[in-house]
């Protein structure tokens, strides 16, 4: 029975002041006396063995404390299980400095520890390595014949493999009057959050078994994930270690697994009994997980009237030699479109690369980019407008799971998006619009992303000064978690926003899962709502016991929490201030810890997804092949919008990512070396300010009381998924060229 004073309002980000004044502290920014600096050395070969690693020059410099290598590293946890984090795919996780074996290029092989950063960096340049090289494989295309089914494990619960075929695709496709078939190739991408991965371990001496206490400032999308990893790998009891991460300079999935700087900093701190900071370089940001390269095949069949009858979607993605990374790439067509004959397939190829890692809209943006281009092609073949075609093949149920959607306002997304964009004025003919030497194209695509919810815990405390403090060990990677959780708490307990604080990113707080997959608003939001509701009951009980309480013979259902008071619904004059309630508690704060759980019984009867319709305009220079995205309209149906301001920003960010994926982002591997060659922000191109023009976001009203108690669906991925296909389809409309390889660089258009 939450009120809506703040929920749904465009409140300025509550962490804004810290961020615009430089006060917000990120993992590398916590100072402590006598801090040592670590600098990582990485392998220059992709596969083989370290024969010899020469550290004496580095060690000869005054101020260099130690160089850790596989030869002198401390004894560490023995079993793979200890290294498995919450986002670990099936397999055997990479263990830094385990042995002499090189498993991928730029693998971390040594850690130089020195008194200053400058010294550690210089000393690292003096470490030389002799290798025994072996032939490596890093080319997905050349190895696609080795594609196989991925192993299943815990990760398969969140990322189910494609279901069994339905109907008979081959027969239906052969009989279809309209057919399209295409192969889609996507490059490797790297997350590249602006903040480089960093860990600062503040060490305090102690006589305990683990040699002291460790306060770990880590760049992570989940402090719980980091503490589990560090505690298990280094055999440190939970009471002696605490992980803190109040601000995260971008994640996009890169922080879903503990990265190797955490291992390095913890190892050095424990061995040297000193505080240690390890910060990766931008080049090293290309030395852990990435969005896998993929090769997809999509084949669609339709009747002469444009009714889809057959759907085939297969994907081959790369993985490492030691873990089977998977993502949901091919299922979305089966969820969005009605063909009776569907075959979906997802396979992987092991290469001598690091394990791929979930990157914003993992799988979804990959699969939908291919699928929605194929649908565009089919609509064109059928001579039907792409929006019309999608409306003609619209499903109110999820045909793949044969379940109704908990809510699906996609039709309204098409309508409002098309109207805002001016889609009706579109001439369907490719190359029909131009402005001087620029060809103009309009394209559109659909987006879909799961609306998930996991379990999380939260604490709410009514402090002795009458203010409310709520906390949960979740993260805010720029998503607005601080702000929306404060809004939810304030409304649930009828308090002004300025009297409520929400804290996160600390393992001393109740546990929450890693922040990813667009589930945090639903997951932690439900926990915050639940704990505030339960605190309300506790406060009401206390209020009833107060002398001369107006609630002595009243039940909880008869009161409301409003204006920092508990009030009788029928008579607002019958009220008790929350301050008096806490005062009556013998001078102690009133606290409550609760768990927010998904209602599985209710949810399992429905498919729960956010949807979007994306409309893009591009100009393509006919002579140079340069593509510019001049405007995008994204109409999003994602349930209740808690804060239109931060929500809009998330969608805008997704659109910018869509421009990057469609036109710019590609980690280029030189297969001769098995190494990413453009490992810098000068050569790995992300969208910059001049690449981004008119972006328009529409939130379509959508009511959903099944998805979770707040009715929210999450916004981290839905802003991205449909954008690359809309851009690629606009490029086709501008040029008449169907480019099935992302990114669409100018060479592909000339």
């Amino acid at each position, binding site marked *: 029975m939450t009120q809506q004073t703040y929920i749904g309002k465009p409140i*300025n980000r509550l962490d804004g002041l810290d961020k615009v004044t*430089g006060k917000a502290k990120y993992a*590398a920014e916590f100072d402590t006396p006598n801090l040592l600096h670590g600098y990582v050395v990485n392998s220059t070969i992709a596969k083989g063995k370290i024969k010899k690693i020469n550290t004496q020059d580095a060690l000869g410099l005054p101020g260099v404390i130690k160089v850790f290598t596989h030869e002198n590293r401390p004894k560490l946890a023995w079993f793979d299980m200890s290294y498995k984090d919450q986002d670990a795919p099936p397999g055997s996780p990479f263990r830094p400095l385990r042995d002499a074996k090189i498993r991928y290029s730029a693998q971390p092989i040594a850690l130089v520890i020195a008194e200053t950063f400058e010294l550690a960096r210089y000393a690292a340049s003096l470490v030389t390595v002799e290798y025994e090289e072996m032939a490596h494989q890093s080319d997905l295309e050349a190895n696609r014949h080795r594609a196989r089914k991925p192993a299943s494990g815990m990760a398969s619960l969140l990322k189910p493999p494609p279901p069994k075929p339905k109907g008979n695709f081959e027969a239906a496709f052969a009989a279809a009057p309209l057919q399209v078939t295409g192969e889609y190739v996507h490059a490797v991408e790297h997350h590249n959050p*602006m*903040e480089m991965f960093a860990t600062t371990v503040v060490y305090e001496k102690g006589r305990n078994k683990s040699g002291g206490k460790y306060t770990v400032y880590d760049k992570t999308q989940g402090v719980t994930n980091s503490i589990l990893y560090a505690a298990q790998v280094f055999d440190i009891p939970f009471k002696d270690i605490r992980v803190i991460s109040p601000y995260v300079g971008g994640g996009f999935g890169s922080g879903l697994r503990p990265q190797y700087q955490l291992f390095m900093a913890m190892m050095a701190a424990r061995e040297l009994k000193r505080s240690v900071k390890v910060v990766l370089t931008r080049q090293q940001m290309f030395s852990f997980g990435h969005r896998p390269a993929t090769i997809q095949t999509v084949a669609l069949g339709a009747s002469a009237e444009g009714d889809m009858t057959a759907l085939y979607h297969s994907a081959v993605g790369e993985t490492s030699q030691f873990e089977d990374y998977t993502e949901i790439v091919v299922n979305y067509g089966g969820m969005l479109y009605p063909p009776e004959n569907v075959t979906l397939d997802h396979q992987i190829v092991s290469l001598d690369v690091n394990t791929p890692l979930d990157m914003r809209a993992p799988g979804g943006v990959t699969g939908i980019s291919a699928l929605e281009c194929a649908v565009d092609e089919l609509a064109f073949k059928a001579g039907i407008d792409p929006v019309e075609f999608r409306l003609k093949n619209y499903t109110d149920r999820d045909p793949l799971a044969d379940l109704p959607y908990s809510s699906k306002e996609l039709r309204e997304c098409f309508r409002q998006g098309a109207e805002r964009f001016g889609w009706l004025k579109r001439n369907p003919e490719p190359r029909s619009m131009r402005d001087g030497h620029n060809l103009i194209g309009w394209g559109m695509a659909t987006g879909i992303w799961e609306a998930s919810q996991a379990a999380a815990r939260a604490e709410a405390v009514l402090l002795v000064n009458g203010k409310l403090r709520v906390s949960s060990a979740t993260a805010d990677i*720029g998503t607005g978690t601080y702000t929306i959780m404060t809004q939810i708490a304030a409304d649930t307990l009828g308090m002004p926003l300025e009297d409520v604080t929400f804290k996160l990113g600390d393992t001393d707080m109740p546990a929450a899962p890693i922040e990813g997959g667009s589930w945090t608003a639903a997951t932690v939001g439900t926990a915050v709502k639940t704990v505030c509701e339960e605190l309300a009951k506790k406060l009401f009980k206390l209020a009833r016991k107060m002398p001369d309480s107006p609630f002595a013979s009243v039940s909880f259902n008869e009161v409301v929490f409003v204006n920092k008071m508990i009030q009788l619904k029928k008579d607002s004059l019958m009220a008790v201030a929350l301050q008096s309630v806490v005062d009556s508690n013998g001078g102690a704060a009133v606290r409550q810890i609760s768990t927010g759980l998904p209602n599985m019984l209710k949810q399992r009867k429905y498919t729960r997804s956010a949807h979007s319709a994306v409309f893009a305009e591009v100009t393509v220079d006919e002579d140079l092949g340069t593509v510019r995205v001049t405007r995008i309209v994204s109409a999003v149906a994602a349930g209740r919008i808690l804060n239109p301001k931060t929500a809009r920003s998330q969608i805008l960010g997704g659109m910018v990512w869509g421009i990057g994926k469609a036109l710019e982002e590609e980690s280029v591997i030189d297969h001769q070396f098995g190494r990413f060659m453009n490992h810098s922000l000068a050569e790995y191109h992300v969208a910059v*300010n001049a690449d981004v023009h*008119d972006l328009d976001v529409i939130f379509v009203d959508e009511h959903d009381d099944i998805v979770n108690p707040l009715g929210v669906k999450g916004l981290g991925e839905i802003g991205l998924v449909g954008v690359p296909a809309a851009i690629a389809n606009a490029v086709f409309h501008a040029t008449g060229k169907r480019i099935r390889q992302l990114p669409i660089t100018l060479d592909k258009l000339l």
Partner: protein
Amino acid sequence: MTLTAKAAPSTKQPPSLPAMHTVKLTVNGIETELQLAPWTSLLDALREYMHLTGTKKGCDHGQCGACTVLVNGKRINACLTLAIMQEGNEITTIEGLARKDADGKDGLHPIQQAFMDHDAFQCGYCTPGQICSAVGMMNEGHARTADDIRELMSGNICRCGAYTNIVDAIQSVMNPQPDAA
């Protein structure tokens, strides 16, 4: 401390370190004396030795703009200059950008307030650089249109993709609406 001879792997001279230098920096109006290795960048001097961590390291190669600070009012990448080269200059970082208000309390630069009002950031990591860059760009006085701003702010990458809001925030300060206070 001297180097030990036994570690030398070959006949070549073992590596040695250049002497530390005393460097006087004037940052946000305060002069500070630091003992630094001569190759210490201004960025590392600010972050590691003066603990002014508002200036961010995003690439250390002048490719992202996260470390943008103002030197004598001009925007530069603090990672592309050595601290020792900035002696005698007025360095302003995000921590020193806020103006004192009438009561002498820390106020905000109009750009800082505009960034909050326009939600011109998400994770906040590129934000100090964006803000210093915007102030530097306005000092340069070349930006007239939104397209100018986009072009002249393209040295500052925002991976969260807040660009449209950044442009709106800067425009709101450059061309204040008549009804704004």
